[in-house]
């Protein structure tokens, strides 16, 4: 699993309709979700996400339970999302599809290098370390397995 990338800054209260609009939900094709991720916020963003770490404001992922939002972000190549808080369903969904989330309130500097260590609960921005909330052991296990599907597949 990748543990860092360059920062892309997003505002607070990004809702799941903004992550992936309802008009793209009538398919199971993940590449379509990835291609249209954040389209209503900035249509050029989807092409700039590969290898990036999103650093957003509070309440990231509020709104609907659509898991396509987390999948779209992952499929677009985002390494992790950092935000002071996440909407709780989005939080579960992201872990379940293997997209790491980091709960931390850090100033975002577009393009700066961010690295993180989830087990240690640490994120490093341009060489400066910040402590972050660690995930529960269960969430770490699910994330470690690559998501909830893999987690259960291995247990059966």
């Amino acid at each position: 699993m990748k543990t860092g990338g360059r920062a892309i800054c997003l505002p607070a209260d990004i809702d799941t309709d903004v992550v992936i609009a309802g008009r793209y939900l009538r398919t199971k094709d993940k590449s379509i979700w990835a291609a249209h991720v954040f389209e209503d916020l900035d249509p050029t963003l989807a092409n700039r996400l590969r290898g990036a770490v999103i650093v957003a404001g509070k309440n990231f992922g509020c709104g609907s339970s659509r898991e396509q939002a987390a999948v779209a972000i992952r499929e677009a190549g985002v390494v992790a999302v950092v935000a002071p808080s996440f909407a709780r369903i989005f939080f579960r969904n992201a872990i379940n599809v293997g997209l790491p989330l980091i709960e931390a309130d850090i100033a975002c500097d577009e393009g700066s290098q961010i690295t993180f260590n989830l087990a240690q609960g640490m994120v490093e921005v341009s060489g400066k370390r910040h402590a972050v909330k660690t995930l529960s052991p269960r969430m770490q296990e699910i994330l470690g397995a690559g998501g909830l599907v893999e987690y259960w597949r291995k247990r059966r």
Partner: protein
Amino acid sequence: MSTLSERILNAPAGEYVDRKVDRAFACDGTGMLALEAWKNMGAGHLADDTEFSIFFDHIAPANNSTAATLQHELRGFAKSSFMNFSDVGGGICHQLMGEGNVLPGEIVIGADSHSVTLGAFGAFATGVGATDMAAIWLTGETWLRVPETIGIRLEGRFAGAAEAKDLALAYVGELGTDGATYQALEFIGDAVKDLSIDERMVLSNLSVEAGAKAGMFYADDVTVRYLRERGHTAKPQIPESCMYSREPEFDLSDIIPLIAVPHRVDTVKPVDELAGLPLDQVFIGTCTNGRYSDMARLARIVKGKKVAVRTIVVPASASVLLQATRTGVLADIIEAGCTVGTPGCGPCLGAHMGVLGEEEVCLSTANRNFKNRMGVGGEIYLSSVATAAASALTGEITTPEVA
């Protein structure tokens, strides 16, 4: 001394627990994804002892052959695995679960964010995503973090034209869209006993718009009576004194008709301030305000008059539609020039009908007004049924008259 969440989940706030799920449901959209995850997990049999349901409501009837094909597969799965299945036209999952299928004290998980609606019955009800649902199909269990709780204290009685939806917008406005993230709401205070089940469902429904994990009422005589009429025996839940993280108070007599303006549910203004804003569409329905009492209120206001703008009315369930048909409420609505859609989510999520064109303005009784939700470039204002009905008659945002 415990909050209702702590009591039902049987652990103190902050603890992570694994719990058996009493009822779990998905809709057409999340169900398809859950089925995909289920197959990828290599799963075979559904867990015993959990009641599973699938409801076709979000894009029902299907808008194109892609959706129809996906729905066909999910329908086959629901039937062959002996889940409860509600097909096109049955209605919205939350409404159908609320029509006597959720009991106080249960743990109810829905693959849809507005599953919190069912907290109106004293259940711990919350939403998850599709892969979580697949895991619940497999194990009958899920992990939960026991939430802290905000007590929403309600006093007094509604006055003027204000209704439960206005109160819901008022509390979301006060808490903000993330004011209750990771927490549960409990609605308490003297006013609760006077609130009908329909009104409670409205208040619970909007709780997720403040980020809440659950929006709960203690089961009382009103709940017990409602469930008895639907063939269930239930006992009231007696509140204990407990620790709330906050306890904002609302006097219902202070509540006035409100509107949430684009594109946030917590940017709430008095209807008066927006009066005169021209509308292109009025939409009355959804898991917030598509119940029979809403249809009846709409009919009372528009009866014998004509709407001045296209007005789409979508009953939340087949039984709502049937009751409205039997009582004549539906005829009043249609005679007034409204059009009526198949019970379900209708235009709420902009996926299959009632989609807005660019720069079109819609006044809706739904719970979300996010950017482009009902169509790219469309603007959504959220209000009560009374405000929507009064505005439909004039074609512009209009303060409802006192009932």
